[in-house]
């Protein structure tokens, strides 16, 4: 079976623009959660905080008309994708274009553009003047579509959508495509940008979001007893994956190996995870089996860790169940404590953080650990990043619909 490696990284998140800035903020344990600034929150919204990409100006990547015609998740996709491609050193030309694929995870698509269109054109009965760019702006697969247009990649191009697990399904599918020989390189990851009235109102109605408006930086507190829900974040992460032989042939720098992928369904409930956590257990177990990895080799888990009681307790129990005694020896963190929950893009930025943890020998922390929850009793790397060179990192993602996906990364040897 072909070995698949990571050769390029690019991202924008609430921690900033670019991989270097993200890693600096992440390992310093800084929160990217602030009062919402992208729109003026209506009084009806009980949540008024989010993780927004700070100081993001799409015209740094696009002309003004292009920026106006594309939804924000597309702006973020391009920023991350072009950084990743440049970082990889891969040159896409006539000779290899058909061997480079674009597979990205998007959970919801262009919700802000949809909201504005409804507000401006449908409510005012000006349906004839809905923008001709409305449909292209909101469809989820425009993320890989635009990335292919701007990079010239002409291999398969599509979007995986599985709510908060979307990007892990995209990365897993990229791994399979590369192993099969269908392509030599894939730009994969995910994008999401739904900091808008509609999404906040919808998640508020589910009582899913933190309402700690007076203290945004401590609002996302995964595994902490005083958590009160997740914090919505936005961003995009893109990884350049290649077969090892392709990477070596062009002398590329290799960050880590994408070793295994596992995915399951709960078959239980539209939004609540199975109480026994079996869907998560089996997804992690499959990823390890797929990568030929023994439980004891796993040193770090980037948890789904949303900061909701249902998730954090179930996921902690699932890790205990799968790893048994070894669960006392491995470190687990939720970087959502700093970035918030990026939904369809969450697994993309968390894959990048996991890869960097292996590459730098530093494990990112879980911040906002104040009061321990007896049902969450793992080593969550509280407050401060930790120097530790682990061999395998596992990145978990669990989504509405009862969908579970895990990707295992191995240190490059």
């Amino acid at each position, binding site marked *: 079976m072909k070995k698949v490696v990571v050769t390029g990284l690019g991202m924008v998140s609430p921690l900033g623009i670019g991989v270097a800035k993200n890693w600096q903020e992440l390992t310093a344990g800084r929160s990217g959660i602030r009062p919402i600034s992208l729109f003026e929150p209506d009084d009806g919204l009980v949540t008024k905080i989010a993780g927004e990409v700070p100081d993001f100006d799409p015209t740094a990547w696009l*002309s*003004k*008309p292009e920026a106006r*015609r594309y939804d924000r998740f597309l702006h973020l996709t391009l920023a991350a994708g072009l950084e990743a491609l440049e970082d990889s050193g891969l040159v896409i030309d006539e000779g290899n274009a058909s061997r480079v694929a674009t597979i990205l995870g998007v959970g919801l698509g262009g919700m802000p553009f949809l909201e504005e269109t409804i507000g401006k054109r449908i409510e005012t009965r000006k349906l*004839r003047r809905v*923008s001709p*760019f409305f449909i*292209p702006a909101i469809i989820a697969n425009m993320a890989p579509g635009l990335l292919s247009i701007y990079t010239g990649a002409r291999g398969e191009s599509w979007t995986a959508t599985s709510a908060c697990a979307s990007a892990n399904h995209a990365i897993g599918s990229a791994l399979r495509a590369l192993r099969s020989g269908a392509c030599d390189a894939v730009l994969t990851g995910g994008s999401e940008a739904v900091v808008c009235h509609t999404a906040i109102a919808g998640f508020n109605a589910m009582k899913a979001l933190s309402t700690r408006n007076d203290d945004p930086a401590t609002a996302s507190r995964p595994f902490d007893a005083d958590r009160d829900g997740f914090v919505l974040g936005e961003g995009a992460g893109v990884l350049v994956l290649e077969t090892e032989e392709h990477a070596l042939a062009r002398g590329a720098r290799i960050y880590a190996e994408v070793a295994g992928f596992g995915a399951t369904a709960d078959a239980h409930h539209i939004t609540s995870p199975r109480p026994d956590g079996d869907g998560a257990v089996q997804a992690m177990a499959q990823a390890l089996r797929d990568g030929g990895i023994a439980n004891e080799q796993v040193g770090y888990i980037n948890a789904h860790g949303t900061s909701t009681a249902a998730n954090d307790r179930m996921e902690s129990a699932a890790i205990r169940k799968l790893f048994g005694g070894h669960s006392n020896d491995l470190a687990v963190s939720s970087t959502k404590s700093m970035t918030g929950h990026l939904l369809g893009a969450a697994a993309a930025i968390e894959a990048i953080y996991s890869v960097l943890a292996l590459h730098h020998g530093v494990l990112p922390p879980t911040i906002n650990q104040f009061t321990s929850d007896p049902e969450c009793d793992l080593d969550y790397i509280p407050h401060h990043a930790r120097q530790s060179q682990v061999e395998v990192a596992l990145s978990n993602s669990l989504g509405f619909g009862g969908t579970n996906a895990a990707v295992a990364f191995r240190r490059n040897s």
Partner: protein
Amino acid sequence: MSVQDKVIEIIADQLGVPAADVTPEKSFDELGADSLAVVELVMAFEDEFDVEVEESQASELKTVKSAIDFLNGLTS
């Protein structure tokens, strides 16, 4: 502002080109507009001039001059 100046300003803004390049004889195609961008441009005229442009009329608008003449006719 004259209709001509306003049309040029809208075209320059919508298509992201310098106003100096928006000369009457230029076609929208030459200014880089694809079919979707032309639809968007006509909508911008409708919004800015508060007029309704019929489908058959819109399809005749292919150059800067045709837009200026058409809107001059509607607003005079």
